[in-house]
């Protein structure tokens, strides 16, 4: 089928035919020297060097020095990347490393710059947080050598411009993060987490390897430029797309490849969990965009189906798990799965529009996804840091043993609240903006010609809406159980506020949440070079709009202005408060809560996480996991307590992973008999092989 190739692509090819050094369309950016790129590479190299330093330096000095240094380097990385993004710089360099006859191609363009910005700032904040957090780290030696290289590897993935360098960095990212996951190896369950994580990760790498094998062809042209030029056959390209979806999805945590994520992310130290959940998953998304949008060229409409469908399912299923989860960090990890699903949904929409030749709509969809990438990076890091602070202060991750922390750790409570509000897509914070843009995209979908998409897109929209609502529910529960109410355990009662660095890091992220939410226009504008690079068109410039409001398509169609909303809310709230204070009686009295006449209300009479989730799991539970609710009532007149217990099993885990493991185990047991034969039997094996080959030979001649 013939598809109107986007202008950008065609221009791209044309350039390359003219023997351009690198077949990129510069967009509005200027191809300059490699000053910026070499600076970025310098940052990466120094990050890599910080790893050995973590081993070499004496213990105390190491933990004191590494994190500040990492923070500095990451800040430099992020800010210069941001500069590159705004300027739309395009720079290449080829180092004599990696596969000899290809070399290590490194390339900086708007797409790379955007993700580098995310990585840089994410790493910066995480390192700030770690300065405080690491004081409680009992074994810094298990964290320090891998922390900075982990960030470096992520940056390198984004900069890589040939298959080998890409996969090298990708796998290094996996290995280092695995080492970080194994940092607390003595905790029960972490061995399993590490195992599942590393196996799934290498599965993803191998799949990506196959994809690149297809792209590179038999002559092994592994650099992206020549891949881009070699027009891959349509069906083959679809196979590549599927492989890439599996490969990157396994790292990003798409259902059903998500199983490692809730195991591994919580297992790591919290600042690393923040990085893994907030940043590493984004690197996976980068991989998908780079290959599916950039390398594969113009899509066909049915290419958009896999990301669209998988994304929508992932969004909902992830949250359904999150809602019934009692472990705070696991809950956050599951919500990461959800957000990844949202992003992939947006990417699928972008592909669909692009295939139909509706560049502007595609640009809108891509903007929405990328904005959500940035937003999720901010608030998920914030939330993981919050969870880490809670863990620091109480040593508890189980919601059922927390509570009332808002009194003990006020600062953390405020910041965490902002995070939860942002992730629940509440205006005027940033989570709402990206979801709003996605809804706008879904609303433009009648443009699409194929019937299947006509039905799928609104369904995806419904899923999106459901996810948004569930997210709010999930995080009301999380926040309410952890910070509100009365402490459910002595640890929670005795919690103390965390130190200034941790609070500072969280405060920065909270501020970012608010800024991105109030001034989304600036963020959207920052993405314009990227859009021009990937799609060949851009959205109208937002910064020039009155009151800095967000008007993606036209003012009549739909617009949103976080700033005005914020101002109005503040005005309304304060004015109301002042008014009331003038009129009202100032008198305020503290009294025991209403207890229905049973004065001895122990904290255990509060709603527990399980009981809070019960209605929701009652309504939605059957979808994702076979939940079994059992209520044990005391005999009539008996004074024993009535017990409610909820057992929920992860269907995907049971059906997919466990079964696979069983199959391998069975085959291994079968084959293992061959270990225990007698020499005579082994000889007969040799004899059999010989006779077989001879017979074959006789037949062949």
């Amino acid at each position, binding site marked *: 089928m013939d598809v109107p190739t986007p202008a950008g692509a065609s221009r791209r090819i044309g350039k390359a035919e003219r023997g351009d050094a690198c077949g990129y369309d510069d967009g509005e950016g200027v191809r300059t020297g490699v000053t910026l790129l070499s600076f970025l590479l310098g940052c990466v190299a120094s990050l890599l060097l910080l790893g050995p330093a973590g081993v070499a330096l004496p213990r105390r000095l190491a933990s004191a020095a590494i994190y500040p240094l990492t923070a500095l380097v990451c800040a430099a990385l992020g800010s210069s990347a941001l500069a590159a993004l705004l300027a739309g710089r395009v720079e290449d360099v080829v180092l004599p490393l990696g596969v000899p006859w290809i070399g290590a191609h490194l390339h900086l363009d708007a797409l790379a710059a955007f993700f580098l910005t995310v990585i840089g700032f994410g790493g910066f904040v995480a390192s700030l947080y770690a300065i405080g957090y690491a004081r409680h780290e009992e074994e810094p030696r298990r964290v320090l050598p891998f922390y900075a290289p982990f960030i470096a590897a992520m940056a390198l993935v984004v900069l890589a411009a040939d298959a080998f360098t890409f996969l090298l960095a990708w796998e290094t990212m996996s290995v280092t993060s695995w080492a970080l996951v194994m940092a607390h190896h003595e905790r029960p369950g972490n061995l399993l987490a590490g195992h599942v994580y590393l196996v799934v990760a290498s599965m993803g790498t191998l799949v990506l390897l196959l994809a690149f094998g297809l792209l590179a062809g038999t002559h092994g042209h592994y650099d992206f430029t020549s891949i881009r030029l070699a027009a891959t056959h349509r069906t083959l390209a679809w196979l590549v797309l599927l492989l890439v979806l599996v490969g990157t999805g396994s790292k990003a945590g798409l259902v059903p490849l998500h199983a490692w994520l809730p195991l591994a992310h919580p297992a790591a130290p919290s600042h690393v969990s923040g990085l893994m959940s907030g940043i590493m998953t984004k690197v996976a998304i980068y991989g998908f965009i780079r290959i599916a949008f950039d390398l594969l060229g113009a899509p066909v409409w049915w290419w958009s189906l896999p990301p669209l469908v998988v994304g929508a399912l992932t969004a909902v299923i992830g949250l359904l798990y999150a809602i019934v989860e009692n472990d705070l960090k696991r809950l956050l990890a599951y919500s990461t799965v959800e957000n990844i699903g949202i992003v992939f949904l947006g990417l699928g929409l972008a592909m669909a529009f692009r295939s139909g030749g509706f560049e502007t709509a595609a640009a809108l969809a891509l903007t929405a996804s990328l904005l959500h990438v940035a937003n999720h990076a901010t608030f998920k890091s914030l939330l993981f840091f919050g969870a880490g602070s809670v863990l620091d202060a109480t040593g508890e991750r189980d919601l059922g043993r927390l509570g*009332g922390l*808002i*009194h003990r750790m006020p600062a953390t*409570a405020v910041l965490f*609240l902002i995070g939860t509000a942002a992730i*629940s*897509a*509440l205006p005027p914070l940033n989570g*709402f903006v990206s979801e709003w843009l996605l*809804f706008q995209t879904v*609303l433009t979908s*009648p443009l699409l010609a194929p019937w299947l998409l*006509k*039905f799928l897109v*609104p*369904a995806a*929209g419904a899923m999106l809406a459901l996810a*948004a*609502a*569930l997210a*709010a529910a999930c995080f*009301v*529960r999380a926040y*309410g159980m952890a910070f*509100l*109410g*009365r402490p459910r355990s002595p640890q929670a009662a005795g919690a103390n506020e965390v130190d200034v660095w941790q609070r500072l890091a969280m405060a920065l992220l909270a501020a970012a949440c608010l800024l991105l939410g109030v001034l989304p226009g600036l963020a959207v504008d920052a993405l314009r070079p990227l859009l021009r690079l990937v799609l060949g068109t851009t959205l109208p410039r937002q910064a020039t709009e009155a009151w800095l409001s967000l008007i993606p398509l036209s*003012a*009549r*169609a*739909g*617009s*949103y*202005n976080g700033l005005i*909303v914020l101002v*109005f*809310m503040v005005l*309304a*709230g*304060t004015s*109301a*408060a002042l008014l*009331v204070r003038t009129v*009202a*009686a100032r*008198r305020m*009295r*503290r009294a*025991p*809560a*209403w*207890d*229905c006449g049973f004065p001895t209300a122990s*904290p255990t009479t*509060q*709603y527990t996480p399980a009981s809070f989730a019960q*209605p*929701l799991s*009652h309504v*939605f539970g059957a979808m994702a996991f076979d939940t079994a609710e059992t209520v044990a009532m005391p005999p009539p007149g008996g004074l024993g307590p009535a017990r409610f217990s909820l057992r929920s099993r992860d269907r995907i885990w049971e059906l997919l992973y466990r079964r696979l493991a069983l199959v391998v185990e069975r085959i291994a047991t079968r084959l293992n008999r061959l270990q225990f034969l007698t020499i005579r039997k082994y000889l007969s094996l040799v004899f059999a092989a010989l006779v077989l080959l001879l017979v074959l030979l006789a037949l062949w001649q």
Partner: protein
Amino acid sequence: MIGPYIVQGVQMCLVLVAAPLLTGLVRKAKARLQRRRGADVLQPYRDLLRLIRKETVIAENASWLFRVAPYLIFAATWVAAALVPTFATFLPFSWAADLIAIVGLLATARFFLSLAGLDIGTSFGGIGASREVMIAAVAEPAMLMIVFTLALHAHATQLSTIAQALGLPAVGVQVSLALVLVALILVALAENARIPVDNPATHLELTMVHEAMVLEYSGRHLAMIELATMLKLLLYISLIGTVFVPFGLARQGAPIAAYAWGMLFYAAKLAAGGVLLAISESAIAKMRVFRVPQFLGAALMLGFLATLLLFVARGS
């Protein structure tokens, strides 16, 4: 050119003033239907004033969140209500938030209300909050499907544009619109904690949802929350009015007379809506909590159906 801003201001004040009146009207109507004389229509104002004047009692372990929440909730709801076109469209700030944003603002209010419910750490707050989020988890998608359908009709999520588009005679009566209307009403009932989903008048803790959350509130905090609730009711009724009875809405820069007509039409819409609500409430009985999801699921299905119908219609 200060005129439009004045109009905007007028609308903001209008909704604030009209909300208690509407609630009073509904109560009065219900009382009449129940053969009671019922309280005066202006009673809500008196209640609010009384509450504000009263001494505020809060539980011992109430945090700052508990005390801030009412103002936040009120602010969010008020802004939302003020952005829905009531008697005039294309007000200067109408583009600050479209329908999706309005839904978002209401979600914000609900979010903080449920948190406030959990803050004290009594089981009532827990019941209320968990049921509230359960209802919202179904109601919000339904609402968004409704938004989709409307947006697909008008090619916009901008309420003024929608109102204008649906106001055209070309639209006529359409299946999808009918479905959406039903869905919207169902959602509105649930969102405003009205019968059959919830009973605003009950005082039996175990059956209440909304009331259970605000059980601990008193004095000015309670006043704020009550006012927010009233505003929400007004918001939904005027939303339905604006979208499905998009007549008499004054365009921007229209003569004063047009605005006056708009006012009249708006008052009529509100009154009608209130009375209808009262009738339905006296006619139907409250349902069990766990039947609510099905109730709202129906709304979700209707909304989705409408969207699909539209997509198909567009496609052909």
